[in-house]
C-alpha cells in the first residue's frame, strides 16, 4: 500500500518550501493512485523500464523541474534545488527505480546548467520540455570510481566535403582551441549508466587529450585539461551492449553505452574543451546532496510501512507496537529518519545558496544519509522478521534499494576521504579568527529557493563552518536541545585530530582517517538536527516554525541523545585506541546524553501515539 503524502518529515523540517506547488501535488496524487502502485510493482517484477509512468509524469509538469519553459510562459519556474530535493524525496517514497530513473536527469544536466553556452542551454531546455531524459556517462568498468582513468576518447577533427570525418594531428586544449576543428569522433564504452539504453540525451565524460608517457614525475596539477563533456544524441553509432538485470531497483535501466565512431559537433561540447574534470567535480558536489533526498524518501517509506505494520499486526491480543522491543526498533527507525531528513535538508539549503562551494555538506549528506538509511532498514528488518526475506514483500525491495543508493555519485571511501580532509582543514583553523557563523547560517536557511542556474554557478570560495566556533556562538542563546554535550565531543575530536597529525600518524593511516571522518559526518548530522528540529534554534536562525501536526519534540530529544551517545562512544573508542585521555567534558556528555535518552524513551513508551503520528 502506498503510504506517502506531502505531509511528512521532509516538509515538516524544510526551512522554506511552499507546499502549494501544483506540480508536486499533481505528481504526488498520481503516485498515490492504486493503479500507479500496481503498475510500479508489475514493472519491478518484470524488471521493466517505467516508460508509461515517465510520460504520465511529463504530463503533470515534470519537465519544469529540469528546464525552463520558453520566455513568456506563465508557469513559475521549478528549476530550484529545493524543488528537486522535494521531487526526489517524493519519488523515493513511492519507488526507487522510478526515483533514480527521474532524478538522474539532475546529475546528467548539471554540467550543462553550470557551463553550457546560452545556445546549447536553450536547445537542451527545449529537448527536456519535449519529454527527453538525460543520462550521465562517467564510469568505465576498468577504471571504476577513478574517472581520470577513463579511456573513451574523442578525437578532434572536421568534416570534409563528403561529410566524412578527418582527424587532426593537433590535440585540442583550451589554449590551442582551433575553431576550424568543427567536430569530434568518439570511441569507447561507458558502463553502469542509469538510463543508458533508454535516455535520449547522453552527457559523456570523454578524454579529449592524450598525454605522452613522460619519464619524469607528472605534476599533480596536470589533471586539468585532459577531459571534456560532450552532449550526444543517439544514432546508429551508439549502442547499449549490456543491461544489468541483477541490481536492486529492478525497473531502472542500468546499462552500458558504446560509441563506435560517433560524430559530435563542436557546439555540443559543454563549456571549454578540457573543462571536463572541473565540471564533473562541481556536478558531483551538488548531486551528492541530492542523494540525501532520495535516502530520506526511502527512509520515510520504510518507516511508514513498518509503523503501519506494527499497529496492525496483533500478537498476544494487542498490536506488536505495545511490545517493548518492537517499540524500541520503531523508535530508532524514526530517530534515524529524522537524522537522515535533517542532513539532507541542510545540504539542500547550503547548496541552494553556495552551489558546489558547499560540497562538504553534500558529501556529508551523501555519506550520513546512506549509512543511516542502511541502519534504519536493519532496524525494520528485525521488526518484520522473516517477512522481510520474502522476495515479493515491499520491505524486501527496500533492503536492496537502500544498499544501492550508497553506490551512486562516489564510493563510500571516496566521500570519507573528502570528509576527513575537511576535518583536517577545520582542525588547523584558528578558532579566534572565526566569523560570526549563526547570522551566516541563518541567512542561508532563510534564502528562498534560487533558480538552479544561479545556485550551480555561485562562486564565493569553499564553505566550511567551524563546528566548534559555530556551536559556541549558537549556544549563547538557549535551545530545547542543549549544545554542551555535542560541543564537548566536537572539541575533543578536533583536539584528537591535531594530536594525530602532530604525531605523524594521520597521513599514513587511511583507516584511522576514515574513522575520524565517519564520526565527523555524524556530528555534522547532529548539528543539522539541532538547526532544523529544535523550535528555538529555528527561531534563532530566522526560519519558520516547524510545520507539524503532532509533537516531534520528544522524538527529537530521543534522537539527539541516542545518536549523541553513540558518537561519544565512538570518540572514546578512538581515544582509547590512540592512548589519549579525553577531557572530563566528554564523560559528562556521556552522562547527559544517557539521562536524556532514557527519559525520552520512557516518555515515548508511555504514549505510543508519539510513534504513530507523522507517518500516515
Amino acid at each position, binding site marked *: 500500500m502506498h503510504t506517502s503524502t506531502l505531509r511528512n518529515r521532509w516538509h515538516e523540517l524544510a526551512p522554506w518550501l511552499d507546499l502549494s506547488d501544483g506540480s508536486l501535488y499533481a505528481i504526488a496524487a498520481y503516485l498515490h493512485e492504486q493503479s500507479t502502485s500496481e503498475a510500479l510493482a508489475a514493472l519491478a517484477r518484470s524488471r521493466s523500464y517505467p516508460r508509461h509512468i515517465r510520460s504520465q509524469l511529463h504530463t503533470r509538469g515534470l519537465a519544469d523541474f529540469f528546464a525552463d519553459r520558453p520566455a513568456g510562459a506563465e508557469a513559475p519556474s521549478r528549476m530550484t534545488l529545493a524543488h528537486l530535493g522535494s521531487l526526489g524525496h517524493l519519488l523515493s517514497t513511492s519507488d526507487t527505480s522510478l526515483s533514480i530513473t527521474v532524478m538522474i536527469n539532475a546529475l546528467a544536466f548539471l554540467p550543462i546548467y553550470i557551463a553550457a553556452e546560452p545556445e546549447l542551454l536553450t536547445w537542451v531546455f527545449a529537448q527536456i520540455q519535449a519529454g527527453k531524459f538525460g543520462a550521465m556517462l562517467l564510469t568505465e568498468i576498468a577504471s571504476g570510481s577513478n574517472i581520470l582513468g577513463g579511456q573513451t576518447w574523442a578525437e578532434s577533427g572536421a568534416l570534409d566535403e563528403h561529410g566524412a570525418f578527418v582527424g587532426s594531428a593537433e590535440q585540442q586544449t583550451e*589554449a590551442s582551441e582551433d575553431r576550424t576543428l568543427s567536430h569530434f569522433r568518439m570511441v569507447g564504452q561507458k558502463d553502469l549508466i542509469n538510463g543508458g539504453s533508454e535516455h535520449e540525451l547522453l552527457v559523456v565524460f570523454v578524454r579529449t587529450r592524450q598525454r605522452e608517457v613522460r619519464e619524469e614525475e607528472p*605534476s*599533480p596539477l596536470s589533471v586539468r*585539461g585532459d577531459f571534456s563533456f560532450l552532449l550526444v544524441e543517439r544514432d546508429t553509432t551508439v549502442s547499449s551492449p549490456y543491461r544489468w538485470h541483477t541490481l536492486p531497483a529492478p525497473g531502472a535501466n542500468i546499462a552500458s553505452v558504446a560509441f563506435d565512431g560517433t560524430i559530435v559537433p563542436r557546439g555540443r561540447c559543454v563549456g571549454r574543451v578540457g573543462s571536463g574534470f572541473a565540471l564533473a567535480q562541481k556536478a558531483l558536489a551538488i548531486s551528492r546532496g541530492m542523494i540525501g533526498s532520495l535516502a530520506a524518501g526511502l527512509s520515510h517509506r520504510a518507516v511508514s510501512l513498518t509503523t503501519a505494520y506494527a499497529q496492525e499486526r496483533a500478537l498476544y491480543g494487542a498490536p506488536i507496537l505495545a511490545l517493548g522491543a518492537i517499540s524500541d526498533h520503531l523508535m530508532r527507525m524514526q530517530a534515524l529518519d529524522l537524522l537522515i531528513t535533517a542532513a539532507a535538508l541542510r545540504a539542500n539549503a547550503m547548496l541552494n545558496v553556495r552551489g558546489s562551494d558547499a560540497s562538504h555538506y553534500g558529501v556529508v549528506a551523501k555519506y550520513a544519509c546512506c549509512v543511516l538509511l542502511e541502519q534504519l532498514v536493519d532496524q525494520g528488518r528485525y521488526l518484520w522478521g522473516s517477512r522481510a526475506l520474502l522476495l515479493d514483500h515491499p520491505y524486501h525491495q527496500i533492503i536492496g534499494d537502500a544498499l544501492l543508493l550508497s553506490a551512486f555519485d562516489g564510493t563510500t571511501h571516496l566521500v570519507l576521504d573528502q570528509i576527513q*580532509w575537511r576535518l583536517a582543514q577545520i582542525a588547523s583553523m584558528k578558532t579566534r579568527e572565526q566569523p560570526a557563523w549563526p547570522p551566516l547560517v541563518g541567512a542561508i536557511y532563510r534564502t528562498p529557493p534560487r533558480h538552479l542556474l544561479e545556485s550551480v554557478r555561485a562562486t564565493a570560495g569553499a564553505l566550511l563552518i567551524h563546528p566548534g566556533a559555530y556551536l559556541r556562538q549558537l549556544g549563547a542563546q538557549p535551545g530545547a536541545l542543549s549544545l554542551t554535550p555535542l560541543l564537548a565531543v566536537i572539541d575533543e575530536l578536533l583536539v584528537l585530530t591535531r594530536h594525530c597529525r602532530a604525531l605523524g600518524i594521520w597521513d599514513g593511516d587511511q583507516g584511522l582517517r576514515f574513522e575520524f571522518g565517519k564520526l565527523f559526518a555524524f556530528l555534522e548530522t547532529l548539528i543539522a538536527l539541532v538547526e532544523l528540529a529544535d523550535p528555538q534554534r529555528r527561531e534563532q536562525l530566522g526560519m519558520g516554525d516547524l510545520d507539524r501536526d503532532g509533537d516531534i519534540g520528544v522524538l527529537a530529544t530521543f534522537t539527539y541523545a541516542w545518536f549523541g551517545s553513540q558518537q561519544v562512544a565512538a570518540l572514546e573508542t578512538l581515544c582509547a585506541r590512540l592512548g589519549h585521555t579525553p577531557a572530563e567534558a566528554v564523560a559528562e556528555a556521556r552522562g547527559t546524553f544517557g539521562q536524556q535518552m532514557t527519559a525520552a524513551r520512557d516518555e515515548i513508551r508511555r504514549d505510543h501515539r508519539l510513534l504513530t503520528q507523522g507517518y500516515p
Partner: protein
Amino acid sequence: MSIASQVKQRLAQVCALSPAQITDDARLIEYGLDSLRSMELIVELEEHFAIALDDEAIVHVRTVADLIRLIEQQRSA
C-alpha cells in the same frame, strides 16, 4: 603580502597545514595534493589572483617554487 606568501597561504589551507610548513623547494605531492585537492587549489588561486592558469604551463609545475613562479608570470603577463 608577497605573491609567494599568498600562494603558500592558500596551499596551506587546502592541505590543512600551516603556511610555515610550506617550503619553496618541496614537491607538491609531498603535501598530499591529489586530483581533487589540486582542483580546489587551482580554483582558489585563479579566483584570488584573478588569472586563468594555462593548462600547458601547469603540466610542468611540480614544486612550490614552480607554482609561485607560474603565478608571478601570469600576473605580470
